[in-house]
């Protein structure tokens, strides 16, 4: 990576302390780079001011694509390309098409949404994690603050983090 920044890391042991700390630090006028946790912390998006993910819309659109592809395929094959009467059913046996249409809708919605999630979150098999601390995936919550993005003095941020309940305050250049 060509570009490096200096970060101050607040280490928190408890998720409820962390939530309060995020609030305090943000009210103290500090811009938080990102918070890293070993597990999903309930309510963290609100205190960090993150908007609800729009992946639900992605899932819906992919589902719609699945429905259209399934119907196009089935009508194309059974009704247009080679119409045949099977078991006395119509050339366009709509009820027979429901199961496959449903399955393809679910399939495309799931894969489309998960694929989008992987891409936007930069998750890939050859991906290297940008880890501030190895204990993030164990039991510590890390609040990372980019010094370059903040006007406040380093010592002031340090104090703010300690006052908000951080068990350690570290520095890291990434």
């Amino acid at each position, binding site marked *: 990576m060509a570009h490096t920044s200096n970060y101050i890391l607040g280490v928190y042991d*408890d998720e409820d302390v962390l939530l309060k700390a995020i609030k305090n630090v943000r009210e103290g006028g500090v811009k938080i780079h*990102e918070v890293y946790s070993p*597990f999903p912390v309930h309510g963290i998006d609100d205190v960090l001011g993150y908007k609800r993910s729009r992946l639900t819309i992605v899932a819906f659109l992919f589902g719609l694509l699945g429905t259209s592809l399934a119907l196009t395929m089935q009508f194309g094959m*059974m009704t247009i390309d080679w119409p045949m009467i099977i078991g006395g059913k119509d050339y366009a046996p709509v009820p027979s098409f429901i199961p496959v249409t449903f399955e*393809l809708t679910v399939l495309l919605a*799931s894969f489309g949404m998960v694929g989008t999630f992987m891409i936007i979150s930069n998750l890939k098999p050859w991906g290297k*994690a940008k880890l501030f601390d190895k*204990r993030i*995936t164990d039991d510590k919550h890390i609040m990372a603050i980019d010094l370059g993005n903040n006007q406040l003095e380093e010592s002031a941020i340090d104090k703010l983090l300690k006052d908000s309940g951080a068990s350690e305050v570290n520095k890291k250049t990434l």
Partner: protein
Amino acid sequence: MIAESAIREPLVTGGKTVHDVTEDISGRVEQKPTKTWMLAMAVSLATLAVGGYAVMRLVWDGIGMWGLNKTVGWAWDITNFVWWVGIGHAGTLISAILLLFRQRWRMSINRAAEAMTIFAVICAAMFPVLHMGRPWLGFYWALPLPNTFGSLWVNFNSPLLWDVFAISTYFSVSLVFWYIGLIPDFATIRDRATNKISAAVYGALSFGWDGAAKTWSRYETVALILAGLATPLVLSVHTIVSFDFATSVIPGWHTTIFPPYFVAGAIFSGFAMVLTLLIITRRVYKLEDYITLQHIELMNIVIIITGSIVGIAYITEFFIAWYSGVEAEQYAFINRATGPYAWAYWSMMTCNVISPQLFWRKKIRTNIAATFVISIIVNIGMWFERFVIIVTSLHRDFLPSSWAMFYPKWADVGVYIFTFGLFFTLFFAFAKFFPVINMAEVKSIVKATGEKKQA
């Protein structure tokens, strides 16, 4: 912050901290394989090899190796298929439906249950594929490809084709759901890795996960939507499997009650299999603090409910056969209960209708040995259910001159054994190399619902 009522029993006992969860579960992956595990794996691989011989002979010599005849054209093959698919229902039910209902007790059992689902579906898929006789031509028959042997497309009126779509969608979506849940846990193992190989392998498996709040937020949305999609999916799979029978005109199969009845039966057998496997895993891996007696009791309650639905369905079938006034239908059911396969019918009734009712007693449903035995009995019963539905409905055909019995040959048994070998080989490999409990999810509830450390 998660609030939890003070009178609720703790879901994680033993005063575990978040770090303990990492140690307990990752430790299992990191330690050297134990002797017990090696032995279990060796037995599974031997079973796989023995069954593999049967599969090889079946493909080489043809379907005549099975005991099928002109009257009974479906027997053990489809029985085993439906049985395995049924077992494959609990995992996604636990992770999807219980997630939508916000049942937190799912968190320590969903990983193993989903793994079981995926392996069971693989085993199930073996049967229709092998039944094709020439599986290498299966692509032309089962997938909507322009048929190079003629000009026909696949027939979308056929429930067998719906099954192809249903099972493959179910398998892929369950796999994705399972994998998404595994990513954060693989990252935990990656960050603890002490040697190069595991760092590289778990590094690749963890997809560069870093635990950022933004990613967690999206991750939770993805899990919720996947659960919403997987819930109708899991219900649709066994519904469509039941269509294989229900849309036919065979007395005993031609029943509108089949879809809900099959789904209930699938959940019933799936939970039984989850219990069988988890009772062993919990004992061997000393996971009693994560999979508590409460988890076992709750699963037993699901077994009472679904078992009772299945029991009512059996009785309803009988009533409707009589009430319909259709002689052929009435005969099919009388023949089931009193004909040459009555032993199979009554085994099914005893195992599926009577045995789960024992769980009404709290003493029995909180007894691990009793639960283990009943969970196996339930799965034997569910195998008989499919056998009864398939074989007794077929063996007395429309023409008495073509009435026949079904006798399994060694290849029927061999292929069934093969799927057991496959299932347990995959499950033991999973239990060794993958975190058997969803660490990230359990960590999120340790504080709210974990037992406080005793002073």
